[in-house]
């Protein structure tokens, strides 16, 4: 998970470095376009990370249910 996070961090860094390096103009006239564009761009990058995270969580929940399920009868007096 940590490796995957680092990978996406560096990917973001490489792709967007020039864009993010030194903002020069003022965006008060039209701050919306940049925000919408950022969301579109981030959507793809964080979407995969989110998929892996939720998928991993689902696997953990699945095994946790099995583990708890098999443990329950033993706990019964």
């Amino acid at each position, binding site marked *: 998970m940590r490796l995957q*996070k680092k990978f*996406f*961090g560096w990917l*973001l*860094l490489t792709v*967007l*470095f020039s*864009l*993010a*390096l030194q*903002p*020069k*103009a*003022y*965006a008060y*006239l*039209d*701050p*919306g*376009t*940049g*925000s*919408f*564009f*950022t*969301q*579109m*761009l*981030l*959507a*793809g*990058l*964080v*979407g995969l*990370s*989110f*998929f892996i*995270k939720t998928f991993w969580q689902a696997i953990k929940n699945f095994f946790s249910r099995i583990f708890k399920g098999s443990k329950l009868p033993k706990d019964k007096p």
Partner: protein
Amino acid sequence: MQTASVYKEPSSFRDPSGFIFHRDGILYRQIETSYQEHYDHLMVSGLYAALQRERLLIPHTEASLDLAPQPGGAYKVIQPERLNFVSYPYEWGFSQLKDAALITLQIQKKAVECGMVLKDASAFNIQRHQGRLLLIDTLSFEKYHEGDPWVAYRQFCQHFLAPLALMSRCDIRFGQLSRLYLDGIPLDLTAKLLPFRCRLNGGLLGHIYLHAGAQTKLADKNLKPAAQYKVSRYSLLAIIDHLESTVRGLCWKAGQTEWADYYNATNYQGEAFRHKQECVSAYLDKINPKQVWDLGGNTGVFSRLASRRGIHTVCFDIDPSAVEINYLESIKHQELSLEALILDLTNPSPASGWAHRERASFQERSAGVDLVLALALVHHLAISNNLPLEKIAEFFSRLGRALVIEFIPKPDSQVQRLLRTRKDIFPHYHEDGFEKAFGQYFEILDKRPIVESHRSLYLMKPGR
């Protein structure tokens, strides 16, 4: 009904969906017909009920439409539960702002589940009510259309992420920038202020640096209409999740500042401390206040004498560390009646925003305060800040209906500490001078010398 006093809340004018008004001292919100489909969806989709279950949204009841001050466009009139006190993000400690950010994202996730989104993500919309942070703007939701980007994304980043990043990665005092920029700290400014290494943090790189870069590079470029920017529901949830992990990753630990460690560092302990607590408790029982302000209250030791009696108490202090410790303590022990806020009394929060009326000043918000505590405070104002005693008395007389104040004379070790590195230019700083100065603005009802100390406590009533 015709003669009822109706007062429209001056800060409630930006959102055309409705506005807050007061009628006969009761707070209501008028909802306009233009907001009808969104309000109905909030109520029938299960979102309102879900937010109430988790106490994330201010509860309200529907009132008679006859109460609407502008009945022409009115769809509903609702009566939200009233807050004891409204605080502002620049008065919050780090963890309170972080909790407010996480609650905003939690609400947004729940809204998306129910087919709605937050159209506003203003930090001013989150307030502490009965010990919990919640959203106070019922009209912050709108129906979600698949594919729409989050319209409040920029606002969230400016109101929450930018100040949290600056406080966490630069200096805690950058939280005060929110006082200057009421619509959040501009992202290009945040990008310039953050240290270079923050570019290596994926969350800050995306939501601050890239966001700032995109805003400035694409502004006014007419690339395509806003409606053509598409973000799927899944991607929207992914962005919210990413924002959440970015916020969770920002931390700040309250240091052992001279104020945060005040009670351990002073020789003022033992019997004198216990006696002072007894005297303050006796005054609280005598006045029986509903609202108390504790000025310079440090980590809230004396504030808790009031809040544990069920009195709504706001503890102000200049030190972000002391406020942080106090806030975390109040959350840990689920204290319902205590708020901990940052305030420099020598430069208190001003009236600000449009026409000076969007955000009320510190003094304007004192209208309902029954008792002000000013313990171990006057020597800092008078000696460290060269404030004449008359000026202090005059300002305090405008804040509450009663005052409990401690006078610490020059022989006390704490005053000696302040005088160690400055010339003693305070010839009137003695008990008689104090009583004379405060006597001009207050009626002194009681005076109690604190045992084993040179200090005295006074109970006063303004309006002499």
